[in-house]
C-alpha cells in the first residue's frame, strides 16, 4: 500500500467509525438517503480516488481505491461509494467531466445491452438495465453502451429513465431503469472493454465482500470470548475455535484475492484476477456467513443484532456483477484455451 492508500484508509476508517452507526444503517434500510455520510465522504475526497487531481479527485490508482472499497464493505456503509468510484473512473477514461454527488453504473448484467444513438451534438439511450444499485437515487448513471461496434461511455441524469424500484437482500436499492430515447448529459468513446461495468463491478464487490468478511471475523471472535455457556466462554471450545480458524482462512483468501485484482487493474489487464477474486470471495462469503451465524447462535439471527448487516450484504453481493459460476466459467475457458503448459506461467505472470 502506498502513501495515498494509507492516507485514504485512515481517513475512511475514521469517518466510517464515526458516522456509520447501527441507527444510520437501519434508517437507510428503511429508505432514507444518508446525506450527512455522503457529504462527509465527498468532503474527505474519498469518492473519486482515481480521478486526476486537476479534475477534483485524489489522483490515485486502483490499489489506493481498494482500501476505500474494502473499508466500505467492512463497515457496510449504505451508500454507492464503490459504484461512484468505478463510475468516476469510467468517465475519466473517456475524458468526460465527473459530476458531484453519488453515481452509479449500468448495466450490471452481462446479457443486458444498452444502445447509444447519436443525435445532433449529443445522443440518446435505448434499452433496459435491471437491478441497478441506487439506480433511482444516484444523481447520475454512468453507462457503457453500444454505438454500433464501439463501446461508448454515457452519462445520464437521475430521472432520465423510467424506474421500477426494487431492493437487494440488504435492503439497498436495486432499481430497473428503462431508457427509451433518454437524452445523455455527455458521451464519449470508451477506452475500456464493452463489459467494463460488469468487470469492474465484480472487482468492487470482491473487495466489499473481503471487507464484510473481516467484520464477520472480528464480530465472531469477540462474541466467542464474551458469550459464556457451560461455565466458560464458548471460544474455549475446540469446535468453535476450529470453525473460527476456518473463517480466518476464508477472510485471508478473499482479502488477498480482491487486492490482487485491484493491482492487476493498475497493470491494465485485470480480467483473470477479477474472475478469481469474485469466485474466491464469493465462496468465502457463503461459507464465512454460515460460520459467523453458527458461532453467534440465535442472537445473530435477530434484526436487533448487527451481524446481519454484513451477512445479508455478502449474500447479495456474491450474486451481483456475475455469480461465482459465471466468473469461474470465464476463468476456466481462458485457462483451457491457453492449455496446460500455460497455466503456471499465467499464475506467475507479474
Amino acid at each position, binding site marked *: *500500500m502506498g502513501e495515498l492508500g494509507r492516507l485514504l484508509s485512515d481517513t475512511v476508517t475514521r469517518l466510517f467509525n464515526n458516522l456509520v452507526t447501527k441507527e444510520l444503517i437501519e434508517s437507510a434500510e428503511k429508505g432514507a438517503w444518508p446525506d450527512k455520510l455522503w457529504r462527509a465522504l465527498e468532503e474527505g475526497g474519498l469518492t473519486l480516488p482515481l480521478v486526476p487531481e486537476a479534475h477534483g479527485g485524489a489522483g490515485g490508482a486502483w490499489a489506493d481505491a481498494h482500501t476505500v472499497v474494502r473499508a466500505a464493505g467492512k463497515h457496510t456503509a449504505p451508500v454507492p461509494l464503490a459504484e461512484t468510484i468505478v463510475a468516476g473512473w469510467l468517465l475519466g477514461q473517456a475524458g468526460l467531466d465527473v459530476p458531484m454527488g453519488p453515481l452509479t453504473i449500468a448495466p450490471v448484467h452481462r446479457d443486458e445491452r444498452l444502445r447509444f444513438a447519436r443525435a445532433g451534438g449529443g445522443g440518446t439511450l435505448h434499452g433496459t438495465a435491471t437491478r441497478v444499485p441506487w439506480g433511482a437515487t444516484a444523481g447520475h448513471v454512468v453507462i457503457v453502451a453500444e454505438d454500433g461496434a464501439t463501446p461508448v461511455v454515457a452519462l445520464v441524469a437521475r430521472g432520465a429513465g423510467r424506474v421500477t424500484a426494487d431492493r437487494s437482500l440488504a435492503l439497498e436499492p436495486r432499481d430497473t431503469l428503462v431508457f427509451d430515447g433518454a437524452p445523455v448529459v455527455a458521451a464519449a468513446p470508451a477506452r475500456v472493454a464493452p463489459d467494463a461495468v460488469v468487470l469492474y463491478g465484480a472487482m468492487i464487490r470482491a473487495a466489499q465482500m473481503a471487507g464484510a468478511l*473481516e467484520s464477520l*471475523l*472480528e464480530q465472531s*471472535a*469477540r462474541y*466467542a*470470548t464474551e458469550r459464556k455457556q457451560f461455565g466458560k466462554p464458548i*471460544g*474455549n471450545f*475446540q469446535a*468453535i*475455535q*476450529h470453525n*473460527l*480458524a*476456518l473463517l*480466518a*482462512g*476464508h*477472510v*485471508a*483468501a478473499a*482479502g*488477498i*484475492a480482491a*487486492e*490482487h485484482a485491484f*493491482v492487476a487493474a493498475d497493470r491494465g489487464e485485470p480480467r*483473470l*484476477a477479477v*474472475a*478469481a*477474486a469474485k*469466485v*474466491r470471495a464469493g*465462496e468465502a462469503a457463503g461459507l464465512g456467513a454460515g460460520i459467523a451465524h453458527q458461532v453467534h447462535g440465535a442472537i445473530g439471527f435477530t434484526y436487533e443484532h448487527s451481524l446481519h448487516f454484513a451477512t445479508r450484504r455478502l449474500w447479495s453481493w456474491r450474486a451481483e456483477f456475475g455469480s*461465482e*459460476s459465471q*466468473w*469461474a*466459467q*470465464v*476463468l*476456466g*475457458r481462458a*485457462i*483451457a*484455451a491457453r*492449455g*496446460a503448459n500455460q*497455466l*503456471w506461467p499465467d*499464475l*506467475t505472470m*507479474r
Partner: protein
Amino acid sequence: MSVFHFELRDLPPEAEAFRDEVRVFLREALGTRPTVRRARSWGGFDPEFSRKLGARGWIGLTWPKKYGGQERSFLERYVLLEELLAAGAPAGAHWVAERQSGPLLLRFGTEAQRERFLPAIARGELSFAIGMSEPDSGSDLASIRTRAVRKDGGYVVNGTKVWTSNAHRSQYAIALFRTAVVPDKKHEGLSQFLVDLKSPGITIRPIINLAGSHDFNEVVFQDAFVPEDMRVGGDGDGWKQVTTELAFERSGPERYLSSIALVLALIEHVGADPDPRAAEVLGRLTAQLMTLRQMSLSVAGMLQAGQNPNLEAAVVKDVGTTFEQSVPEVVHALMDIEPTIDTGGDLQQTLGYLVQRAPSFSLRGGTREVLRGIIARGLGLR
C-alpha cells in the same frame, strides 16, 4: 484482537530473471516425463537430480558462501521452490536437508557442524531425515520418550521414532530426544541431535504406506551412541529449536501445490474448448491456485523482511492443504473415470496417485487440528 494481515508482495526483478533460468534448467532436466511421475514432486527421491541442482548452486541458495551457499534472497529461493514444485521435480533427496536441517544448523549449530554438513548438503550429496514422531507421540510432540543419557563424551540413545521419511536412503537424521525427565514439564529436557543413520544400534524398518510405497520408516535405537559434538544447540533447548524448525516447514509453496499435476492433467483432458461444467470446475480450481499463490508469496515476503509469520503460515497451510485435497474430489465429481495405477491415461493415473496421497496432506508437518489451534490462538481464543 489480531486479524492476520496478508500484504500483497511483488517479486524483485532479480527473482523473476532467476525464474527464467530455473525454467530452462528444469525443461532440460525433466524432459517429457509423464504427469503421474511429476505428481510425486518432492516425494520423488532422485540423488542424481539433487546433485545436478547442487552443481548449479541451487541448494542452500540463501546460505552464506563460506558454507556453500549463494547468499541470495529468500524470495529467489521461493521462486526456485515454486518452479520445482510446479514442474513436479523429484526434489526429495535434498528437500528436508535444504528446508529444515541446514537452516537449523545455521541457526543453532556449532561452527564445526556447519562446516562439516552444510557444503555437502549444498552439493546435493547429503540427505537428511527428521526424527520427531514416536509410536505414542504424534501431534503431542513434547510427550516423546526416546531417551538420550549422557555417557563417555556423548549420549546413549534408546527408543523408537516413526514416520521417518527417507531414513532408509538418507545418511543423517536430525532427531529430538529426551535428555532429562523434568516432572510435569514435558517441554523441558528435550535436545536435538545429528544422528548418523549408519551407527551401530540403529535399526531402520520400512513402514509401507497405504499405496504400497516405502517412504516411511520405523527407526529403533538400542544403546546407539551419539557423540556430544553432534548435539545441535544446548542440552534442553530442543523444544524452542524444534518449534522454529516446524515454522520453516509450514510456510512454503509445497503446502498448496501438491495436486497441481492433477489440475494440469485435467486441463489436458478437457481440451481447449471445455463444456460449461468443466470450464466452471477449472475456473474454480484456478481461482484457488491464484489466491493461494498470493497468500504463500505474502508469507515469503514476511520471511524476507525478517518478520515472524507463524500464524500466517498456519493459515496458508490450512487453506492450502484443504485445496490440495479438494482437487481429486472435484475431478471425481466432474469426470466419469476410474482412478488407476497401471493403466489408463495421465488423468486416470494421476488421479489414482493423488487420491491415495491426499489424506497425508493435512497430516504431515502439523495436522489440520494443530494448525487451527495455532490460528485460534492468534484470534485471541486460547
